[in-house]
Structures are given as structure tokens and as C-alpha cells.
């Protein structure tokens, strides 16, 4: 009886192993596309091993297209132009591409497989994006659910970025989470500091990355991040500035203000910060100090849910009605918005319709 059981198990495993072996050989022999060339913007040529996605092939060569979902084809951040050799548009890409993008050869880099020589076009800025190895230097609690985390770059590296841009940090597996994820956060430190960056991260219940940051990350831990990304950065003009932020949206604005302090400015600036209650306010003293420092800068916190016992003397409700004290010359006003998609949409609409600010002068960074 026992012999019979062992024999059957052996046979079964034999069949399994045989098929697995065939698969491994097939994979080796069929999915081997040899060396292929990726030509970027008609100038740079890369040689990579064919068979994997365009996104990961570029990543191997230290060229990092933005990608929030990590290559699963759900975020659409890794769009790039594939001029030749990308094959037809896949059904997995269609939902994330507009008609004009399809006509313009725009593809999702995570879905395009590099099987032959391929020609692509990406913004030059992307060459500036690198992967940095860093160590956690400091973690400060700003509020009960918002932490400021300082990453010191290792190996003597430095990062060049514009105030307002963001990086993507890579989480490590923890507790029940087995996969690594990439999540985007704006840099809150000024660009003049090149050997470290600070991020402001708010805890989101059940959030894979924020739980990791808030509950598991310690000073001294090593973290990889890529960047800098994004076209939300301070424009060098003389226009008046309206900053509007909510929650952890303070990060890029903090970077912009500290940068302006460094270079000096006489621009008229007003900063509206929307929060729920007094316990969500942070960095208030730093903002008051900046009010003293700049010629014309006002920091206006606005609470939406201030209750009576908090004894809040400041402004309440939505931020929009208070813009009229800040906007004097709508044609000559730039607005920088950072916060939830709902807040951005509301503020943007109000700025255009109620205050007459030009749409192309409204810059925003929305937490998707």
C-alpha cells in the first residue's frame, strides 16, 4: 500500500517536473530575443536584453519614466512616444490613452515589450531622473498623522531639482505586505540643499506605503527613491503668487518658500492652508517667521471643522471666499495648488470663474 502511494506520488511529480522542464526550456529558447537597441530621441542608443517591458528595460539603464502603479498598467504615468518597433496598441493600454494620444504614437511603457529594435521619444528632463540610495536621518511628528522625514543621500550623491517637484520612494516588504510598491511624494526641503531631501507624509489608514512609513520606518533605515519628477515647480516671474494647500500638500509649497527665501524676492505672496481643525495645523511658527522675513507675504490658515472648545480665532469654512483679499491683479497672479483632487478642482474653478485668473497660470499637484 505504502509502496503504491509512493509510486503514485513519484509519477505525479514526474509529470509535473517534465512539464515544468519543457516550460523552462521553451522560455529560454522562445523568449530569448537577444540584444536589441533602444534609440531615444534620435540620439542616444541603448543596448538591452529583449523580452521585457520598455519601462523595466529603461529602468535597467538608469532611465526612469514615472510610474505610480509599478508597471501594472493602471496609472498611465509611464506614457511615452514609441515611433517605431512597438507593435500595435494593446487592449490593456486603450482605456488609459486618449484618441489624440493614440494618433500621436503615445504608448504605456509598461505594456510595450521590447522584442526588436525600437525608437522612442521622451522629454529630455527624464535623463535627470536617477535612482538614489538614501538613509533616514530624521523623523519628526508634525501632527498626530503627519510626519516629516529626512533622507540623506548615500555614496556622496547629490540631487538637482526644482522647488515643487516630487520623488517616488520604494517601500520594502513588511508584515503581511510581500511586494514592493512605489509611491510619489513632493520634496519639502529647498533645492539649495543637495545632499538630503525632506518629505512630508500623512498616514492613510490601510495605505501600503504610508503604513510602512509611519509604523515601520526608523532612523538609520536605508531607502531607495527615484526622481525628481513633475512639472509643478515655481516659475521665475514677477507675478503675484497665491499658494493654496491642504493636508500634507504643504510639502512643495514649503520647498518653494524656502527657495524664495534663499534667492530673495519682493513678489506679493499669500498662502492659504486648508485644514480640518487646529490639531491638523503644523509648521505655523516657521510660516510666521517667513511673514517677518519677506517684504509682502501672508500665511492664512483656514479651518473647515473647527469646534467651539478649540477657541479658533482665525478663518473658517472653504478657502475660496478669502481669495478676494489676496488677489489684486488677476492678470498678473500665479496660483500654485497642492492637495486632494476635489480641493484642486474646486479652487481652480473658483479662480477662473470668480476671480478671473488665467487658466494657464494655475499650476497644481494633485494627490491621486
Amino acid at each position: 500500500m505504502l509502496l503504491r502511494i509512493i509510486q503514485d506520488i513519484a509519477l505525479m511529480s514526474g509529470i509535473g517536473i517534465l512539464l515544468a522542464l519543457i516550460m523552462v526550456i521553451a522560455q529560454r529558447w522562445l523568449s530569448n530575443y537577444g540584444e536589441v537597441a533602444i534609440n531615444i530621441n534620435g540620439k542616444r542608443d541603448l543596448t538591452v536584453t529583449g523580452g521585457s517591458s520598455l519601462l523595466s528595460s529603461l529602468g535597467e539603464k538608469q532611465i526612469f519614466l514615472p510610474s505610480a502603479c509599478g508597471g501594472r498598467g493602471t496609472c498611465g504615468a509611464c506614457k511615452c512616444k514609441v515611433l517605431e518597433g512597438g507593435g500595435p496598441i494593446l487592449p490593456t493600454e486603450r482605456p488609459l490613452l486618449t484618441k489624440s494620444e493614440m494618433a500621436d504614437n503615445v504608448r504605456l511603457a509598461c505594456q510595450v515589450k521590447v522584442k526588436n529594435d525600437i525608437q522612442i521619444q521622451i522629454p529630455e528632463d527624464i535623463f535627470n531622473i536617477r535612482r538614489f540610495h538614501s538613509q533616514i536621518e530624521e523623523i519628526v511628528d508634525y501632527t498626530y498623522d503627519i510626519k516629516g522625514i529626512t533622507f540623506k543621500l548615500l555614496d556622496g550623491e547629490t540631487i538637482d531639482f526644482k522647488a515643487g517637484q516630487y520623488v517616488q520612494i520604494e517601500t520594502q516588504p513588511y508584515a503581511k505586505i510581500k511586494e514592493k510598491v512605489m509611491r510619489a511624494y513632493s520634496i519639502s526641503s529647498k533645492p539649495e540643499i543637495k545632499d538630503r531631501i525632506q518629505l512630508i507624509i500623512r498616514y492613510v489608514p490601510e495605505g501600503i506605503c504610508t503604513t510602512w512609513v509611519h509604523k515601520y520606518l526608523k532612523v538609520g533605515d536605508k531607502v531607495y527613491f527615484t526622481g525628481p519628477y513633475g512639472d509643478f515647480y515655481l516659475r521665475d516671474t514677477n507675478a503675484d503668487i497665491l499658494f493654496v494647500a491642504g493636508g500634507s500638500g504643504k510639502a512643495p509649497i514649503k520647498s518653494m518658500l524656502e527657495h524664495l527665501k534663499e534667492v530673495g524676492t519682493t513678489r506679493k505672496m499669500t498662502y492659504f492652508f486648508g485644514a480640518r481643525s487646529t490639531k491638523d495645523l503644523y509648521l505655523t511658527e516657521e510660516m510666521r517667521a517667513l511673514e517677518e522675513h519677506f517684504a509682502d507675504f501672508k500665511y492664512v490658515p483656514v479651518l473647515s471643522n473647527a469646534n467651539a472648545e478649540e477657541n479658533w480665532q482665525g478663518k473658517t469654512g472653504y478657502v475660496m471666499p478669502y481669495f478676494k483679499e489676496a488677489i489684486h491683479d488677476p492678470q498678473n497672479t500665479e496660483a500654485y495648488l497642492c492637495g486632494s483632487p476635489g480641493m484642486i478642482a474646486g479652487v481652480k474653478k473658483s479662480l477662473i470663474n470668480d476671480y478671473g485668473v488665467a487658466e494657464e497660470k494655475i499650476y497644481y499637484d494633485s494627490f491621486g
Partner: protein
Amino acid sequence: MDISAFVLFWAAIFTSNILLTNFLGMCSYLSVSREIESAFGLGIAVIFVLTVTSALNWVVYHYLLVPFGIVYLQYIVFIIVIAAFVQFLELVIERYTPALYYSLGIFLPLITVNCAILGVSLFMIIRNYNFIQSVAYGVGSGIGWLLAILMLAGLRRKLKEKLVPIGLQGAGISLIITGIMALAFVGFSGIVQIQ
């Protein structure tokens, strides 16, 4: 069983349609029938996989499982053979015919879990078909499945312009349509009996 392979082939399409009389392969039938093009692509892939896996599994059963007396493991072995073959097929198609891969290859992973494929392998063993009969039954079942999904996709396209009660939209109305089509197909069953 001494039914000729030719009769078996037609019977598998009409009188014993794998989908409409055995109700196998329902999940991809319901989910990929929104557009006629993709329904057709998936149907062609099912025909191909059914044909080859019924032949493969017949050989595996009669020359491996029976001699070694492990017939009771047929479910697991059949599933592994189907999964490995589909995976292999996907690699081959992707490598040699990119055009085919884009129209058909993306459906292949869906087929591994299509119960019609396993159903055909099991039926041919239960009903004692010989090799030729098995292959004929495999091809016929595949064509029958394609016919059923194409009919549903066509009807669903027409339905898009019709008012359907909210509670029945989507899978609800599709299942009712399938039931009515199945009734019609039962009408054929007097012609020839294979099960």
C-alpha cells in the same frame, strides 16, 4: 461507443453544445461577449486549444495514466497538461506571429481556466471515445462554443440600443438570453444522442 467521428463532430456543435447543453465555459462566455471581434478571437483560440488538448490528454490518459494505474489523478493531470500547453502556445505565438498574438494571444491566459476545455477532456474519457472520436469531439465542441459566444455577442450588441430594466442589465439579461438559446438548442437533441 461506435458513433462515427463525423456524427460526433456535428453533434458536439448542435445537439450537445458544450455551452448551451452542458453549461460549461460560462465565465469567459459572459465576460468576453461584449464585442463581436473579441468574442470571435477568444472563440478561435478555444477551438485551437480544445483540439490539441483533447488529443494530448487522450494520449496522456491511455499511455500514461491507465498503464500506471493512476486514473484517479486524471483531473489534476489534465489541468496541468492544459495549463502547460496554453502557456507554451502563448510563448510560441508571441515569438513567431506577433500579429496573431495581438488578436488572439491575449485571450490565451483566460482559456486555462475555461472549464469547457477540462470538460471535453473528461467527457471523452467517460464516454470511451477513441482517438479520432476525441479529436472530432474536441473540434466540434470548440466550434459549438464559438457559435454560442458569437450569438450572445451579436445579441448583446443589439441590446445596447434597447431599454433593459436596471436590475437585469449586464449578466442578468445575458443569462436569460443564454437560457432561451439553450431551449432552442434542446430542440435539436432529438436528431442524435451522444450523452
